[in-house]
């Protein structure tokens, strides 16, 4: 047993080794009863933990939690009543109507001023800049402050920044170009959300692309997506969204179809 690195046995149990290495190590371990028992134990524990259902808050607990936190934070507006997590109860919107929506939207984009919302002009780089505007916040926060607060509780001091004035900094607009472009992207999304019929209209096909990114962003394994095709000179857009009722948009992300970069998000 001693000749086997426990870390490698743990990694083998977790499936973290490449297949060739895993096969060799497993064959070696099979000849060593103690190592084999150790591997079996690792797998048993891992399987038990992984197969256990994740604990979830009940609706009442969720509502009470948000209310209590909001009260403690003196938020002026009361938080929205908590519903069951969207990904657990959301009714799925069938794909086929959305596929038709993509085709309908393509024609619409060419015919109405929506084109102006989808396009950011001739410079493709402008739209790309939108995706990094959120990252700008990180730099703003890091650069803004002066004194570090060492009174952080719960051992989180190493992850806290040094910006005691960061809140004020974040209220200031980011770089001018990025602010304008994010606003354009948000406006596009707001237009789509305000008129969700465009998203829910019957459609003919629905291969939107960037599904993995959308799943990650929306934290949902089965979002609904469509690709908005801009008129000549414009820029296509991939939109993925979630709906709880098949008529309104709960969450939506707009992505660059070429790079899958996040361009805008709702809400």
């Amino acid at each position, binding site marked *: 047993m001693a000749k086997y690195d426990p870390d490698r046995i743990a990694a083998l149990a977790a499936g973290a080794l490449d297949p060739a290495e895993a096969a060799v190590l497993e064959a070696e371990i099979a000849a060593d009863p103690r190592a084999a028992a150790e591997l*079996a134990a690792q797998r048993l524990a891992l399987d038990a933990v992984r197969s256990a259902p994740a604990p979830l808050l009940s609706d009442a607990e969720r509502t009470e939690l948000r209310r209590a936190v909001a009260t403690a934070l003196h*938020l*002026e507006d009361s938080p929205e009543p908590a519903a069951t997590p969207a990904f657990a109860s959301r009714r799925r919107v069938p794909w086929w109507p959305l596929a038709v929506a993509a085709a309908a939207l393509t024609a619409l984009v060419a015919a109405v001023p929506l084109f102006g919302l989808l396009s950011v002009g001739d410079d493709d780089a402008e739209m790309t800049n939108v995706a990094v505007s*959120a990252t700008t916040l990180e730099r703003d926060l890091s650069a803004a402050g002066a004194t570090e607060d060492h009174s952080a509780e719960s051992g*989180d001091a190493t*992850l806290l*920044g040094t910006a005691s004035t960061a809140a004020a900094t974040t209220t200031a607009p980011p770089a001018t170009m990025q602010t304008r472009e994010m606003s354009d992207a948000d406006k596009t999304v707001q237009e789509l959300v305000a008129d969700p019929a465009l998203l829910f209209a019957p459609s003919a096909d629905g291969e939107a692309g960037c599904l993995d990114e959308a799943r990650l*962003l929306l*934290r949902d394994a089965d979002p609904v997506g469509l690709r908005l095709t801009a008129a000549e000179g414009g820029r296509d857009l991939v939109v993925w969204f979630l709906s709880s009722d098949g008529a309104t948009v709960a969450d939506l992300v707009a992505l660059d179809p070429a790079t899958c970069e*996040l361009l805008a998000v709702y809400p």
Partner: protein
Amino acid sequence: MTPSGEVDTALIERYLRGDVGAFNDLMRAHEDRVFAICLRMLRDREAALDATQETFITVFRKVDRFAGHSAFSTWLYRVAVNTCYDQARRSGRRQVEPLPEGVDPADESAAVALESVELRPDLEAALAALPSEFRSAVVLCDAEGLSLQTVSEILGVPVGTVKSRIFRGRRLLAEALGNLRPPSDHQSDEQHG
């Protein structure tokens, strides 16, 4: 920064501007996972709810100083784990698996029943029996599926220490689940810590 990290950062920015909707979005994005971590750490549902609430209050009060050196979720989970540690310390008592009803430990005939309890505890009881350092590593990595690097950042220990804690935690867990005899010669202490 990952796309979800960018979303969190954008939501934080909106929250700092006074957007209550961003507060709701951040809560919705993370409340279940924070609660799951707390429940698996503390086992008791009420205690886990208290810890979850305390975690979010702490994080939102300090979020203006979040610098983004690590993902927001990493920071959040770190606060959650430390809150659980604090709460467990405050409670000052260790959760124990109760004996089956009507069983007298002094009764020799109870041996089989006792053994069945000992060998087939439920997973939560088995997790609760782990030392807290092992439990947190197993919960974060194996139950929540976080990477070793992320768990390392959350726990504030080297990756090697996380690996060691997970290895030993799983072994103890398997023993508690009754499917592995305790090795006669336990391996030495953490090898990377």
